């Protein structure tokens, strides 16, 4: 089959997630501070939909779907600015599953355990060293933290991090702490030289950026239809209209390339690495551009009201992937893909 659009079954998954989130997770909820907001109230509903184990086998409580379906769901998570903790918990389930810690994997999938991202503040060369400093992303309710990178991936008890310091986050819709890793016995560990976990993180962050780029496009163009200045909707002015059109172009490029990359990854094609890196770069450019344009099109309201949440989240997600220069280099290291296959 040659078809880049979601099937009926895939669309059902997307619809069930988006209908839940449009009720439970309007972006306006983020006006409350993260401590006051109860993001965790959605946790069990998301778990009940099977999102945490979507790409995991059924024997450990997963759904048995693929990276393609995971990508579609995380696009919705990006659109509604769900905490990156939803991603880190999904990845934690995969890490635990891959190294045979099925009991732990099942807890993540069931929504009974939460894993946050621990992002290294300095580059890792292999396993993290003791006392190395990490940024813990939205870890207030986390039981575990995951560390992914340098060809390995691991799940740690949150208690293995010490000297915890609460920081003021750039993305104020999440909490941010810095901490040092003081124990070197992860509860789950996989060698990731082949990049299976790394690419899953890359593709799902990319999917969230696609959602952010699309949501920013929609928010900007919907506003341009109703906001009136000089006696008419600002969307009639080409300066605004063309900016919205560029948002549509960026979002379309990002979405299409991300879908294609997910299919190449699912089918284990030789160009999977090429396509995933290309998708990330295109989605990053789209998310950066559209979140900024959304603020600009909202004018004074953009500087003060909800549009900025998307921009801040884009900046946070970038740090999960790390330096863009490395993605560009990775893309250049690959052979040009053969499309005939």
């Amino acid at each position, binding site marked *: 089959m*040659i078809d880049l659009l979601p099937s009926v079954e895939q669309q059902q998954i997307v619809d069930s997630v988006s209908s839940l989130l449009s009720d439970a997770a309007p972006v306006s909820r983020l006006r409350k501070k993260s401590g006051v907001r109860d993001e965790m109230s959605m946790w069990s509903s998301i778990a009940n939909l099977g999102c945490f184990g979507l790409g995991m086998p059924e024997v450990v409580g997963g759904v048995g779907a693929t990276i393609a379906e995971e990508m579609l769901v995380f696009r919705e998570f990006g659109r509604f600015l769900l905490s990156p903790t939803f991603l880190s918990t999904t990845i934690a389930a995969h890490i635990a599953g891959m190294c045979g810690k099925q009991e732990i994997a099942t807890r993540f999938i069931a929504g009974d355990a939460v894993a946050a991202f621990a992002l290294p503040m300095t580059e890792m060369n292999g396993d993290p060293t003791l006392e190395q400093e990490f940024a813990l992303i939205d870890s207030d309710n986390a039981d575990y933290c995951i560390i992914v990178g340098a060809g390995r991936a691991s799940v740690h008890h949150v208690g293995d991090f010490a000297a915890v310091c609460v920081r003021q986050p750039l993305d104020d819709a999440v909490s941010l702490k810095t901490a040092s890793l003081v124990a070197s016995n992860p509860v789950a560990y996989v060698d990731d030289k082949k990049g299976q976990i790394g690419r899953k993180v890359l593709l799902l962050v990319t999917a969230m950026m696609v959602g952010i780029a699309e949501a920013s496009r929609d928010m900007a163009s919907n506003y341009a*239809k109703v906001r009136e200045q000089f006696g008419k909707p600002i*969307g009639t002015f080409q300066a605004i209209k*063309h900016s919205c059109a560029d948002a549509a172009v960026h979002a379309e490029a990002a979405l299409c390339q991300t879908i294609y990359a997910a299919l190449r990854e699912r089918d284990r094609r030789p160009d999977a690495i090429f396509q995933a890196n*290309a998708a990330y*770069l295109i989605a990053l450019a789209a998310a950066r551009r559209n979140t900024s344009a959304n603020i600009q099109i909202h004018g004074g309201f953009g500087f003060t009201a909800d549009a900025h949440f998307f921009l801040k989240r884009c900046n946070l997600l970038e740090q999960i992937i790390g330096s863009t220069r490395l993605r560009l280099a990775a*893309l250049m290291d690959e052979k040009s893909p053969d499309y005939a296959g």
Partner: protein
Amino acid sequence: MDWQYSQEDQLFRDEVRTWLAENKPREIAPTENGDIRQFELAWQRKQFDGGWAGISWPAEYGGRGFSLVRQMIWFEEYAQADAPGLGCLVVAINHGGPTLIVRGSGDQKAFHLPRILKGEAVWCQGFSEPNAGSDLAGLKTRGEVDGEYIVVTGQKIWTTFGDIADYQELLVRTDPKAPKHKGLTWVICDMHLPGIEARPIRTMSGHQHFSAMSTLGFERGTGYIAHGVKLARSVESLIELARTVRGPDGKRPAIKDDELHCRLATARAEVAALRSMCYAAISRNERSEAPGPEGSIIALYFGELIQRIHRLAMDILGPLAMTRDGAYGIWTNGYLENFRSSIAGGTSEIRRNIIGERVLGLPR
């Protein structure tokens, strides 16, 4: 979501690849007008004899009526084989012919369609006028019905291949009292008639052709497949070029320069995205009868991307970019030539209007 070619499609691809390898013209395409015509008509005839003419035309009009996927495979292989573009046949095959198929009379179809497919007629497009470009409906050329004739008075411009065409698809105003967008008539004009004066215009790249992009079918996503494949090949050869020419520091190859390296990687990513957008458009159109306005997104993206890539080529070439002759002329000429890519067939500004209004639903 799935991207797996069926065995039949794979066999089809092999067949196309083999035929193109054995039959595509070996000689270098000529550059003089008369020779271009002869060369391109001969290649069209060869495709017709091989059963490959009109791949997107319905079978009842002599075409092959291939599915969108097969059209896509044909265009991919065509571009990969570096077969010559449609050239002076672009209007006949991509616009004049399809217009006749939808709206022509039985006689018109019976006369013109076989001639187009067999490579016996060149068409040009008489749409734009000196004062009617983006605002096409502002055209003033009059067509007055006088018995069996239409007397046409006016001036057209950017009529690519007007000097070597046999027919012109000509837009004229036949009802001056009707509103701007009404009262226009599409007529077939015999270019050999007396009273037609064709004056060549030189473009900024020095050519006489300001070709309407061969983009009919862009609404269905197939139109840009060949462009995408060609552009991907261009980027790969640009990477090769950057390995051989000296970079800005005068010592290492250009590809060792951080900035050029990053821009090449970005170009690779953007060309990949262009291809995926075409795939998505094809997927969408497999499900719906009428193509949506999303095709304008691909057209806009392509037009600006090919310009960025040629700007990058100029920066990689450095002082070598001063010349148009020699080995690097393909890049410097392409740099100049592709300024048309955001103008011909609809400016980027008009495309943004279309995207804003018809895709996003913004007010006019």
